[in-house]
Structures are given as structure tokens and as C-alpha cells.
């Protein structure tokens, strides 16, 4: 029994870690640019596939480093060509645009890499379990969680201690003032979008090692990430972090007791938050309203 619980707790931690990386990227873009990026799950898949293609040439570690950066670069192109045109328009257009983009990207992935699942090769040592008694905890799982924690700390440190990070945080609160102080808001938004895509690409490489690759691998993560943002509170990145961990753990622990309800419990949390604390756990009243 204790093995079942440990198994599901580690699962929850890992699922929660993916929710957190996805949701943080989405949240960054949403906070600064008021855009819900429906294609975020497709940027995740893109990161995974790029790693798959690059790893024969660069090795796993090289691919882990390069493919999130490439994903971010593609994010820059997408933002410059399309997304920046709709910043000052009704939100319906940004939703439709990224929704269409998600369709195109998913179909493109299917066209280039094929509709069937592909396995992602891992360095030999990572696939081993840590101890025989906890056979399900491989080194890869430990490695994944470590990378996610490092990425999250890195992101928060970046936003806290660098000039660009400061501008992103200020722009979240009042973009007009930031613009009038002479900051190039166009470039700031592009950079911010790329940063979100970088996180998506990174989670894509990590997810590929765990569940393999397929064209719609990001879709299952998209809805929980939305919910993580709402539960944590729109406008608060720490809130998004807590929201992601909370629903990941809740879903995993429900799996122990009653597997069929693991999706439902996420929605139950969403409803409870909307009912009791509509601004989210750490959100501020009036954000994005």
C-alpha cells in the first residue's frame, strides 16, 4: 500500500511539475500581453520533436540545451509575424489566432514527424531505477524534477534581479507607464513571448523522455494549465506555481482512492475557487478585467 501511495505522490509531483512549467509560460504571456496562447501545447510538442531530431547530432544533453532555445526562436518569429498585430484588438481575435495556430502547428508536426508516437532515447544511466524497492522512481524522474525546480528558480531570479525581468513585472501591472518611461514595449513583449515558449520547449523535451512523442502530446496539459492559472490567481506567477502543484497533487492522490475521478477533482477545485475566492489563491482583484 505504501508503495502505491509513494508511486502516486511522485507521479503527482511530476505531473504537477509539467503543469507548472506550462502554466508559468502561459501566465507570463497572459499577464504582459493579455493573450491566451492556445498553441502553447504545440510549442511543447515542438520542443520535444526538435530534441528528437537534434539528439543524434548533438547528443541528449546538447538537444536538451538547444531545442528549447530553438523553440523560443520560433516563438519570436510567430510573435513578430502574427501575434503582435492583435495586441490592441478585442480579445476574441487573439484567441482565434492562437487557436488557428495550434491547428496548423499540430498538423505540421504530424506532417513532418508522422502521426504515430515516437520514442525519445535517454542516456543509459537515467533510465535506471534508484533502488530496487522503489523500482518506479528512475533517475530520469529525479532528473526531471530537478530541472523543473532549477528552471522555476531561474525564472523567478531572472524576473527579480535583472533589468528586463523588472520591466516585465512592471509591464504586468501597468504597461502604459512602462512604455511612457521609454521602454521598448514591442521588444519586451516579443522577449516575454519567447521566454514563455522556452519554458514550453523545455517541458516538451522533458515530457518526451517520459511519455514519448506524438503530435498532440501538449493538448492534455493545456486545460489543466488554464485551471492552474485560474486557481492560483491571474496575474500572480507564484499563484500559478502553487495552482499547478496543487492540482497535480490532487489529481494524483485521487488516483489512489478513485482513479475515475482524477480529472473531475481538478474541476471541483476550479469550481470551489471560483465560488469561494473568485480572484484565485494569490490573485489580485481586477487583474485583466
Amino acid at each position, binding site marked *: 500500500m505504501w508503495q502505491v501511495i509513494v508511486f502516486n505522490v511522485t507521479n503527482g509531483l511530476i505531473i504537477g511539475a509539467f503543469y507548472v512549467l506550462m502554466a508559468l509560460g502561459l501566465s507570463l504571456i497572459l499577464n504582459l500581453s493579455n493573450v491566451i496562447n492556445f498553441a502553447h501545447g504545440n510549442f511543447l510538442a515542438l520542443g520535444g520533436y526538435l530534441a528528437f531530431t537534434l539528439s543524434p547530432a548533438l547528443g541528449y544533453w546538447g538537444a536538451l540545451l538547444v531545442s528549447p532555445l530553438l523553440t523560443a526562436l520560433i516563438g519570436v518569429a510567430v510573435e513578430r509575424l502574427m501575434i503582435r498585430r*492583435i495586441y490592441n484588438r478585442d480579445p476574441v481575435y487573439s484567441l482565434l489566432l492562437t487557436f488557428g495556430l495550434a491547428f496548423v502547428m499540430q498538423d505540421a508536426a504530424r506532417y513532418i514527424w508522422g502521426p504515430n508516437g515516437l520514442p525519445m532515447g535517454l542516456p543509459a544511466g537515467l533510465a535506471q531505477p534508484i533502488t530496487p524497492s522503489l523500482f518506479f522512481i528512475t533517475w530520469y524522474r529525479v532528473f526531471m524534477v530537478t530541472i523543473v525546480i532549477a528552471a522555476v528558480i531561474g525564472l523567478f531570479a531572472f524576473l527579480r534581479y535583472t533589468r528586463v525581468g523588472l520591466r516585465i513585472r512592471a509591464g504586468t501591472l501597468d504597461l502604459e507607464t512602462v512604455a511612457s518611461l521609454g521602454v521598448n514595449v514591442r521588444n519586451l513583449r516579443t522577449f516575454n513571448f519567447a521566454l514563455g515558449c522556452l519554458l514550453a520547449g523545455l517541458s516538451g523535451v522533458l515530457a518526451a523522455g517520459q511519455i514519448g512523442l506524438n503530435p498532440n502530446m501538449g493538448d492534455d496539459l493545456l486545460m489543466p494549465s488554464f485551471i492552474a492559472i485560474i486557481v492560483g490567481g491571474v496575474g500572480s506567477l507564484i499563484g500559478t506555481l502553487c495552482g499547478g502543484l496543487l492540482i497535480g497533487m490532487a489529481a494524483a492522490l485521487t488516483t489512489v482512492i478513485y482513479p475515475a475521478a482524477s480529472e473531475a477533482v481538478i*474541476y471541483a477545485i476550479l469550481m470551489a475557487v471560483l465560488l469561494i475566492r473568485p480572484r484565485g489563491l494569490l490573485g489580485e482583484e481586477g487583474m*485583466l478585467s
Partner: protein
Amino acid sequence: MTTAIAAAAPGRPTVSLRIVMLIGIWAVLLAVPLWLPLLGGYTALAGRVLVFGLAAMGLNLLLGFTGVLSFGHAAYFGLGAYGAGLTLRYVAHSTPLAMLAGTLLGGLAGTLFGLLIVRRRGVYFAMCTIAFGQLWYYLAYSWNGFTGGFDGLRDFHRESIALGPFTLDIAAGGDTFYFFLLAIFAAAVGLMGLLLRSPFGRTLLAIRENERRALFLGIPVARHIWLSFSISCFFTALAGTLYALLNNFADPMALHYSLSGYFVVMTVIGGMRTFWGPLLGAAVFVMLQDYISSMTVNWMSFIGVIFILVVLFFPRGLLGTRRWLKV
């Protein structure tokens, strides 16, 4: 009052032109069984246009005429479809009862959920509608025994309706069923038109144009947005019941958020701020989708590109552009 409306909508067609347009629209819809086969279409396709058109027009009550963005209307459409299908399968072989049950199920779910999110605005509101909409998708997907799960709900069939001495034989499909759909569509659209002309509908426009001003005028804005959301869900749920009757089938994709996206793009293609726009948009979208998916397996790319092109180059939609050019 009249001058105020005229000023708010420049380029609004004159009354006589509008009557001619109305007669034209209904004539085209009534004559579908005559002209559609000539163009290589089939009547079920026209039925689909009516069903999606009604759903998109219901959404537009909220999106175009109240200025509130829901990206989760497929939930209420799908609940309507499942409500009708489940009633026909488990409760009674009665088409009117199935329609009533489906409409109530979808509409009431929307009404209750609206209470939770009515104070959210803009993107946040949209995000809540998307997230909540997916709840029903997962429910239908995982409750295998009751809903048929991934394969959808089968084993039900629309039943003929007995009207005193007559029997309306819609079970067979074909033209009779198309006219049945058209009659329901006409009743719903007529009701929607009356609603938009009423003081309530004018208040919704006022909220769309300037929410703060409406608030200062003493209009209970939140309650009006909630009512608009609720009414719009009822119309979309009604369309959903017709969808179940049309296909004798309800599947989880009728609840999926991509269908919500289709409804929004139909509305935008036709023209968000026009009454008939969503129907025209639905016609264009359904025809294109039917054509493209018969031509290529990469239909998703084409649909996605349509979304992107509409947003970037054609945001006002077909009817919106006409009004914008003041034709």
C-alpha cells in the same frame, strides 16, 4: 431613441432594404431543397448549417450584442445534444420531450455557471468558460456506461411527432426533416430578434458600448450579463438538441473546446455585430470544412489558416464589411 440608434450604427440599411433582405433570406432558406442539389450539395448539409448557425447566433447574443467573450459554448451545445439523446434512449421515445430536456439541461448548466463567473471580464472570463466547458467533455468521455464514452451515444433515433390527426414524419429525414429544422430555427431566431429589439436587448448594447457608463446610469450590469449568458446558452443548447436529432448520435467532440472555437470563428466570419452574420459564417464554414476534409487529410492546417487569415485580414466579417463600407 431612433436617432440615437441610427447614430450608433452608421450605414444601417433603410427599412425597405431590410425588409427586402429579410424576404430574401427566408426565401433562400425555404427553397434549399430546390437549389442545393443543383450545386451538388445535400439536404443534411443544409440542416447542419441551420444547426450550427443557430448555435453561433445564440453565441453572438453574448459575443456581438453584449460584448462578452465566451470560448466554451460547445459545452452547452453538447449538453443539449446529450440531453436529447439520453432522453430518447433511456426515458421516452418523444422528440419534443427530448428537445425540451436537452435545452433545459444545457441552458440551466449555463445559467448556474454564469453566476460563478459573471464578475470576471475579458480574457479571464473567456478562460473560465474554456476550462469549465472541458469538464463536460471529460465527463462524457469517461462515463462510459451511460454516455457511450469516446465512441459517442448511439442507439437512439428521432421519432415522428403526432399532432392530433396528423403525424409529422421526421424519422426518415430528407426534406420533411429539413423543414422541421427550419421551423424550429425560425421560431428561435424570431424570439432572438424580439429580444434584441426589447428594452432588455437595447440595454445589452449599452453595456457593450460602455460598461462603466451603463453602470453609472443605474443598470445592474452584472445581472444583465448573467441573463445574456444564460439566454445565449439556452439558444445554443436548443441547437445542440437539433444536432443530436440530425445525426441520431451525440459524441464528445460536440462538447470539445475546438467546437467552441468553430462557433466563434463562424460568428467572426459572418460579422460579430450583425444579426444574420453567424448564419452566413456557419454556411461558409460548414461548406469549406465539408469540401476541404473531402480533399485532403491535412484539413486541420487549412482550417487553422482560415482562422489566422480571418483574424489578420478580415476581422469585421462578411456582413460587417458591407456595413463598414456603408453600402
